[in-house]
């Protein structure tokens, strides 16, 4: 299927649930859905559009909302599913039941942005160290790192 055919087919299948569909470049399709429709859209992509392969999940801090992008790849196109969740209620459903390989990426957004992924099979931290304090989410835009003073052995600090 070509890009245009995929876009048209998605419009037909999702109807009003597809808030926005964009095709900015060859083989790149961006689809926006509401958080409640996420699992349904992912299941549809897996079953009908051959998008069983999830490349990664990107989190973005947009100010009043967090944006999540799920990047899927089929043999003919790269479909990225976008949802927006409010900063005051950062919760999203887990897609691990549909795509088992999503577990590590969901753990990463949990610890980096503080987004609670509901239904995640394994909620532990992925990358941050064991002694990282709770409540500190490094990839949020308002989180700044203060570098501790460096000690230069045998020299001026």
């Amino acid at each position: 299927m070509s890009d245009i055919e995929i876009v048209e087919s998605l419009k037909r299948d999702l109807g009003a649930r597809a808030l926005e569909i964009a095709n900015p470049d060859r083989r790149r399709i961006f689809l926006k859905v509401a958080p409640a429709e996420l699992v349904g859209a992912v299941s549809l992509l897996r079953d009908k559009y051959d998008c069983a392969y999830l490349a990664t999940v990107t989190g973005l801090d947009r100010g009043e909302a967090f944006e999540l992008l799920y990047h899927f790849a089929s043999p003919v196109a790269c479909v990225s599913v976008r949802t927006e969740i409010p900063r005051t209620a950062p919760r999203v459903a887990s897609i691990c039941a549909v795509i088992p390989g999503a577990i590590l990426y969901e753990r990463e957004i949990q610890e980096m942005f503080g987004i609670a992924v509901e239904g995640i099979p394994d909620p532990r931290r992925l990358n941050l160290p064991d002694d990282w304090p709770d409540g500190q989410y490094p990839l949020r835009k308002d989180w700044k790192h203060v570098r501790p003073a460096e000690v230069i052995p045998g020299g001026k600090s």
Partner: protein
Amino acid sequence: MLNKLTRWSRIKSPWILHLNSGACNACDIEIVAALTPRFDVERFGVLLKATPRHADVIIASGPVTRQIRDRIVRIYEQTPNPKFVIAVGACAMSGCVYRGAYNIMGGIDQVIPVDMYVPGCPARPDAIVDGVVKLLGKL
């Protein structure tokens, strides 16, 4: 000159422990490449050992991440005296491009005392061999 060097090396014949404290792996591959036939650090009697209890020299690479900091200190304490530390690569010296990252302490010398610095990103195997031999000369 070469005879004096090889004599020193045969007398000392240090056993090396390779420590990676969160690096990108380039310096580590160059350290292992120093063992391969082209650079061959084994002709100086240097052997790569796996456990800190047998090591004389610790070759450390990488900027120190928070998670591995305690383990590095522990490995340093487990190594018996006399021991020496060589910091290989720009990351081990000061953090290289990662300075300022939230999970990085800086160079290896923020955590354990260092005796020799080998610069480069990554340090070439010849530079590493040169650093090891110079350290042997100082002993």
